[in-house]
């Protein structure tokens, strides 16, 4: 499938979701399980991306003190937990990654 088709359909599915209840006549009905499930989407989606980024290298498990991304990621998680600041989390995480890569 061409990149453009993937973009088009990804955009259409996103648009359809945003449009859904706005154009439906009976806008008050949403299945209760769906309403409950929605709040778990961000933690599940985000962590499913984060874990492989930190724990894998070339598709294989890489848990070691030499894994700079894992160490920097853990530090960033600590910063995010204590400060709740996105920009500070990203800044500390990048600086930590560069520092650890330079040290190793």
């Amino acid at each position: 499938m061409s990149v453009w088709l993937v973009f088009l359909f990804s955009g259409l599915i996103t648009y359809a979701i945003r449009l859904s209840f706005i154009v439906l006549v009976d806008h008050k009905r949403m299945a209760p399980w769906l309403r409950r499930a929605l709040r778990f989407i961000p933690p599940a989606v985000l962590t499913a991306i984060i874990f492989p980024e930190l724990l894998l290298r070339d598709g294989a498990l890489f848990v070691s003190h030499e894994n700079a991304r894992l160490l920097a990621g853990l530090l960033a998680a600590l910063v995010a937990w204590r400060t709740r600041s996105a920009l500070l989390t990203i800044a500390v995480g990048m600086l930590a990654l560069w520092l650890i890569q330079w040290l190793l």
Partner: protein
Amino acid sequence: MLPVLVGVIPFAMIYAVLALDAGLTPGQSQAMSAIVFAGSAQIVMTQLVRLDTPGLVIILTVGIINLRHVLYSASMAPYLQPLKRGWKWLLAYLLTDEAYVVTAVYYQNSEPVYSESRAGQGGAPAGEAGNDIRYWFLFGAGFSLWLSWQLSTAAGIFLGAVLPTSWSLDFTLALTFIALVVPNLRDRASVAAALAAGLIAVLAFNLPYKLGLMIAMLAGIGLGLWVEGRE
């Protein structure tokens, strides 16, 4: 509103840098911002493109990530019900996380605003729901966010073209998501959802067609529901 507009700038720039890094052209990177117009989904898409994920899996993954927008759609629906179709379709396109949050707060803290000049139009007398003009707030918030997102994407494309790849800037993907997820792990059910999704994503990473990500997300959501149901 201004902090929100400024807040999306670094995310759009990070997206654009990651998009170029994943091999997308500047034109494709900018187009994705206009066509999909959803920050975290776009950032995940760059990762999936980088991993040569089949198109169908990318589209379905985007659908799952953006499913949370049905909540926004349902929440805005009663306010937008009297509007003409064109307005509904336009406002739905602009209904992002940020636009929804500021508009929902605005609707909750304000009384209906009626326009004198529009009184009587569309058959609705002045003072009835059909003449509530507060939808202009959603348009203003949505459109300014859209503009901020497109311009910041363009700035990120320029930046991404000059930054060396040796800087490991792809790591901003993980960092951005860490910054988004950690402050929101407030109860056992969401922690369970996050841990399950993360661990399964690692275990299932080498599944064919990169299906592991989708399976992990669904399993995490399922476990979150189960833990919440038990409590």
